[in-house]
């Protein structure tokens, strides 16, 4: 019926449509599959994996904030080995593009994880989460150090031919500098943004509401910031951008695409409406039809400044 071409390309990766579910907000696909048809989406990005399993942070891990939420899950995950053995079989059956997100505490660990996972046919692309505390260099985040991001991109690039996406931290002054180095070092795309650092206190106990003290802010509250980061990258660097941050509906998704995103990821909304992804694909299709856009890729960076 509809003639709108929804497929998009990110590096060598072909996506059915530009709507992905974000890392850490969809687990390994099985729980959310009860509520939505994942095969209708562009793809899913799995929870950040590290080499060894991590049990994650002690509770309380999450708290609601105005139009947002803070989380400090602590990258709880099963580790690459269990992932390959136990999670991939189910993920294969989903008939959706599988992007594997990796988080590590050293450059070597990033490389090691990528090497192991690169052999898995089910995995079509890697998304490297650089917003993790860097154990070796004093606990600062890799994601805030442009040289570290460059080195990670270079080293991981060397061990995989699959599409390589670097997920950028928003907690920096000029995110486009990071996108630039990703491009220079051979990355295929960037995802923007990960969560903003935030906190919240209980004024009676005077303790942080989140046990980890700070957490990552997500949800509609951060949408204007995320859009500004996407736009900044789009205006300064020629690299595909996956837009993330506070997308609640197809209008928000369209806004990111217009601001420069080739595809989008949904995070927090999955917790509220696990079927949002499918609804957003539909909404984008109708929007394109009604505004005479034949290919959704034509919307990307179509801003009129």
């Amino acid at each position, binding site marked *: 019926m509809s003639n709108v071409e929804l497929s998009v390309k990110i590096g060598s990766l072909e996506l059915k449509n530009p709507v992905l579910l974000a890392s*850490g*907000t*969809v*687990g390994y696909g099985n*729980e*959310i599959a*009860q*509520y939505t048809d994942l095969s209708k989406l562009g793809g899913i990005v799995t*929870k950040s994996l590290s080499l060894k399993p991590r*049990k*994650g*942070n*002690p*509770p*309380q*891990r*999450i*708290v*609601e904030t105005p*139009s*947002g*939420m803070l*989380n400090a*899950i602590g990258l*709880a995950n099963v580790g690459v080995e269990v992932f390959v053995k136990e999670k991939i079989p189910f993920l294969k059956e989903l008939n959706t593009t599988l992007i594997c997100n990796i988080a590590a505490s050293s450059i070597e660990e990033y490389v090691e994880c990528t090497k192991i996972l690169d052999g898995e046919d089910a995995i079509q692309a890697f998304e490297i989460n650089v917003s993790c505390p860097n154990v070796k260099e004093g606990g600062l985040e890799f994601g805030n150090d442009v040289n570290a991001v460059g080195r990670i991109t270079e080293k991981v690039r060397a061990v995989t031919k699959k599409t390589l996406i670097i997920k950028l931290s928003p907690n920096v002054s000029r995110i486009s500098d990071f996108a630039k180095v990703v491009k220079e070092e051979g990355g295929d795309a960037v995802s923007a943004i990960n969560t903003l650092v935030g906190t919240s206190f209980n004024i009676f106990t005077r303790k942080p509401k989140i046990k980890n003290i700070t957490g990552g802010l997500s*949800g*509609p509250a951060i949408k204007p910031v995320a859009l500004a980061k996407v736009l900044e990258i789009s205006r300064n660097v020629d690299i595909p951008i996956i837009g993330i941050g506070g997308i*609640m509906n197809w209008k928000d998704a369209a806004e990111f695409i217009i601001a420069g995103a080739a595809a989008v990821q949904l995070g*927090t909304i*999955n*917790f*509220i*409406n*696990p*079927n949002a992804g499918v609804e957003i694909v539909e909404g984008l299709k109708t929007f394109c039809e009604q505004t005479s856009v034949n290919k959704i890729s034509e919307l990307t960076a179509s801003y009129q400044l």
Partner: protein
Amino acid sequence: MYIEKSRFESIEHLEHNIHLIKVYSPSIARSAKPGQFCNIKVSDTDFPLLRRPFSICNVEGEHIFFMFDIHGEGTLLLATKKAGDELDILGPLGNGFDSNGDYQTAVIVAGGLGAAPFPFLTKRLPADKNIYSLVGGRSLHQVIKWGLKNIHVSTDDGSEGFKGTIVELFKTKIDELDGKKIRVFGCGPNPMLKALQELSIENNFDCQISVECAMACGFGICQGCPIENADGGGYSLVCKDGPVFDAKKVKL
């Protein structure tokens, strides 16, 4: 499990600040088990952002009941709904109580709003079981008896029944009840659950507790609701592995 656009039917005011709402939610009603919960979108806007989890308090045909007090903005919004309003409900969620098996008397231990899941359990208890309900509150207005049977009351201030906590009342009843032939079902604030857990472990009671914690998704995708396993081997998820746990298996 369903995302069900349900119809708000009515609201009833029980004790001080306690509300009982009835919604028409046939799919969830048909599949619900006592001890399970639902994650409710309390508004039609994006505010508040997250759903709010509530125990399934009772099921009558295709209707579900939820019981709550006005805590913050979410519950306030819920309390101002009108008949005919649409409510977006995700559920039934979690594991629920296991009420089958080899025991004679179900001992319900409810602290304050911890009473919420027990009307449904009371109703669905296998026919061959006796029921014995211990219900506590800070004072007589916080004692919620709706839908419960064979009720023994405690209040912190002694304004009704036993003066003291509900677990203290339980202690005084241990002799009356045969420890081997009971199964304990507890729900309430954390300090109460902790006391109940200790008592149960000491006396080797078969005890299931329903715990609460902050939640985002309610069905296992956010990892926001960990509870420490008693064996030290990491965390379980309250929403998926619980909210009902064997009292021996978790650290409170």
